[in-house]
């Protein structure tokens, strides 16, 4: 177990390492703004230069059937397909559909989890974008309930 002070000390070192590898500036330049502004799954994949997404049983979206609070909805996206380049998590009825985009390398599994804000009940998507530009998706409905007490 690492103490926080050790973490702090190493933080500067690691940041320096990543910066010297040219990582941070590269990422900033590559931010997919158009994809993050898109309203639908099809528009998202188009903005990312991929084809229209096709439903696939080899892609999995995980999440609760009912979210007690839309501010934090745990979602997982994964695929068993070989040759996957990116894994996306989308919420259809949000102001912009894409929540997060994970770039897959050989060193990680195509299996990611994060938590999303949802303004209302909606379908949520996992989308796998392949190296050849094809896109596959899975979806499920997540109901968002009202909070207590109306306040």
């Amino acid at each position, binding site marked *: 177990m690492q103490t926080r002070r050790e973490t702090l000390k190493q933080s500067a070192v690691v940041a320096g390492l990543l910066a010297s590898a040219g990582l941070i500036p590269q990422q900033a330049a590559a931010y997919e703004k158009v994809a993050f502004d898109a309203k639908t799954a099809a528009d998202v994949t188009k903005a990312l230069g991929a084809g229209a997404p096709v439903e696939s049983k080899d892609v999995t979206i995980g999440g609760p059937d009912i979210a007690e609070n839309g501010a934090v909805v745990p979602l997982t996206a994964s695929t068993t397909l070989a040759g996957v380049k990116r894994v996306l998590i989308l919420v259809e009825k949000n102001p912009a559909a894409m929540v997060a985009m994970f770039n897959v390398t050989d060193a990680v599994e195509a299996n990611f989890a994060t938590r999303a804000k949802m303004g209302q009940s909606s379908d949520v998507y996992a989308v796998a974008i392949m190296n050849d530009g094809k896109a596959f998706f899975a979806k499920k409905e997540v109901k968002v*309930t*009202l909070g*207590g*007490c*109306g*306040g």
Partner: protein
Amino acid sequence: MKKQTQLLIAAGVAAVVLVAGCSSMPSSAELDKLSQDVAKASFRDQGQAKVDRLVLDDANLECMKADVAGQPIAEPVAKAIEAANFASIKWPAGGQYIGDWKEGEKIAQSGRGMTWTDAAGSENGGNCYNCHQISKEEISFGTLGPSLYNYGKMRGVANPYAPESAAIVQYTWGKIWNSRAYNACSQMPRAGHKGILTEQQVKHIMALLLDPKSPVNQ
């Protein structure tokens, strides 16, 4: 301010100990008094929520005592509270009890109003779904109060304006306006009596419960 409140318990203990003799607990009445003093010293005004809200009327004082003792309130005290609260009910002008159930549903859904974060004078909600099941469509409902689904239908109200419905219509109005008129220590807020809902809003809630067209009675 803080120092003052913190000294209170020590002072309170010292005072009652002096009265009661060393190391014996203060009496229940002394603790009642001390509790009220502690409450007074522990709260401040914020927004529309002023410290005068801590003043207990007879109904609240007697019910609190009964709750602390873990006993039901004494029958004659209960009857007196119910009579006093019944007398305070304001009945609608011209016998017009029923409003629009669609408005009633909105009021039932809203839990807003009268907290220190609500703007003074903003429209209040009824808080109804917090404690009651009402329409079947809303699955997010509380269970502190009984289910009100099919409220009118169950009671045979086919026409809330018909004379045979008068008794249940009047009871329902009275219960919403001042619940303590029928049950001295009811936990239900006194929506009309305490100015939480307007007469018009109560009519809309009445429609939600009693209008045969309301989703409650489907």
